[in-house]
């Protein structure tokens, strides 16, 4: 893992803990407000979190698929 991130393992562990705390805190924030929406599922607890997360997964999937078809070496037009 040390090649993937610039932190020591100990710092990385701490950052993970902080990150999970933030995730939990934003989720918990949803307990205190009534989300805006059109009156359907989008007003349920944690909807922006899981829907946004799912959207990211789908977007990455679509970009992988498009990349699989359309990616070329970056000197493609130079030749």
């Amino acid at each position: 893992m040390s090649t993937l991130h610039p932190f020591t393992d100990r710092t990385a562990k701490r950052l993970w803990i902080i990150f999970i705390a933030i995730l939990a805190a934003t989720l918990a924030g949803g307990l205190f407000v009534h989300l805006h929406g059109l009156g359907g599922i989008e007003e349920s607890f944690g909807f922006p979190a899981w829907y946004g997360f799912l959207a990211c997964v789908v977007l990455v999937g679509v970009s992988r698929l498009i990349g699989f078809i359309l990616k070329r070496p970056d000197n493609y037009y130079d030749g």
Partner: protein
Amino acid sequence: MTASLILPPALALFLGAAILTIARGWLRSAVMLLAPLAALGLVWMVPDASWGVGGYLGYDLVLVRGDRLSRWFGTIFAIMAFAGGLFALNQENRLETAAAQAYAGGALGVVFAGDVLSLFAFWEVMALASTAVIWSAGPEARPAGLRYLVMHLFGGVLLMTGLAGEVQATGSVAFTAMVPDTPARWLILAGFLINAGAPPLSAWLPDAYPKASYTGMVMLSAFTTKTAVFVLLRGFPGAEVLIWVGLFMVFYGIVYALLADDMRRILSFSIINQVGVMLTGIGVGTTLALDGAASHAFASVLYTALMLMAAGAVIRGTGRARLSELGGLFRSMPITTACGLIGVMTISGLPLTVGFVTKAMIGSAAAKENLALVWYLMIPAAAGVALYAGCRFSWFVFFQRDSGLRPPDPPWNMRLAMVFVAALCLLLGMVPDLLYAHLPYASIYNPYDGAHVVSQMQIVVFAALAFVLMIGVLRPSATITLDTDWLYRRFGLTVWRLTSQAIWTVWYLTSLATWTLTVQALTELRLAVREGFLSERHGSSTMAIFAVGMLVFYLAVLLIF
């Protein structure tokens, strides 16, 4: 037509550009900073009135038409010209700095133009000046700059054709709101959309912008696309087609930015993505949506410039622009990293940034209009931006593995420009009333309610979680992703080559055949001279006819080949 004291704000920048072509030293620096400030002053002095310069071809030209919308865009353009000038103080290329200021002047000309003729003139000034900005980067930028110019001149032709039809139909050159219901108006819309980076001809943007210098691209990012947003706001508010075009651009931008390797290409796709959000707002068309689009254009000029300034500082320091070759720069470039992070936080729409207070207006407007599809797509749009810019761009440039590069932060003026824009992003996010008091359509909006803060936070931090979990597949590689420009850069070229080869082959075969036939004819002629027709005696009239025949044959051969 009352006030004769109205000065076109563009004038300050055109004068500045003229001086910049010859000025050196402190005078040059002064003009780069003071001309935009003078323009800003003039923008704020423009009253709600029109100022004309008389007629052209029987039409009244209105060089300045002041209203809230034109002052709104004029303000951000003047601020941007100032910040871009500050960032570019040590750019030694005089053509670039002069062209950049003329380009900003053209943008100011467009936003204050009250009639379509002067609008078109300034539109073309922008096309030429921005091409000069791209070409200033050197020989490597020439092909892309030429493609850029051709595309914008083509857009200009569409626009002019449409405007001519519109003026002919209405008898007026006033630039007012239209509904796309005639071929002429569709042509106008198409001309505007080419500059907005809309499909299918958006490829000019990621093709040309990255070829500009790092100071040039900061300027380019602000004016062309946002001027297009302005004219669409003015000309086609509520045109439903813009919703679909906008939504396409939003997701096209995200997907291509997720694949891109070059920082500048990522930010090019980011421009298309963000302009898509604005077009969606214009298409929704309520006052809240239009204000949202205008505000988002304002914010987007700031954070896009900020991210490009950070990217420019990185390119200046390392000579590299690819994510796959960068990393770990936060150690030696703390100010650049901090400003870059403020930029990506703003585009991600985190609370306390200007991105938060502007983008939400468009979503809220969609909810009020019960446009369920738009509303449901706004969350993936926000999550996608947080993913490609908030996480992927910032992580792979400033953090990830240590690339071993230790570039210092850039010179003071570039640092100051970044800090200035970053401060604006935060100030307008924390005190949104500074913006809201001047909204072009005067809607009333409160961004800081609990539900909005919580849902935006959830979207962004869970997008970050998605990034951390999928970081393996988001790793950059030295590739590009083909786009519609493939059609004219490869496919068209291949067709052209094949066609010209075919033409050559036919020509070659024809010549060969002609030559063979000629040789044969000459042989026959020799035989005729020796023992046939030509060795006999003939009357003068026969010979005259024969000579005329030869002449006609000679002419025919001459004409054919």
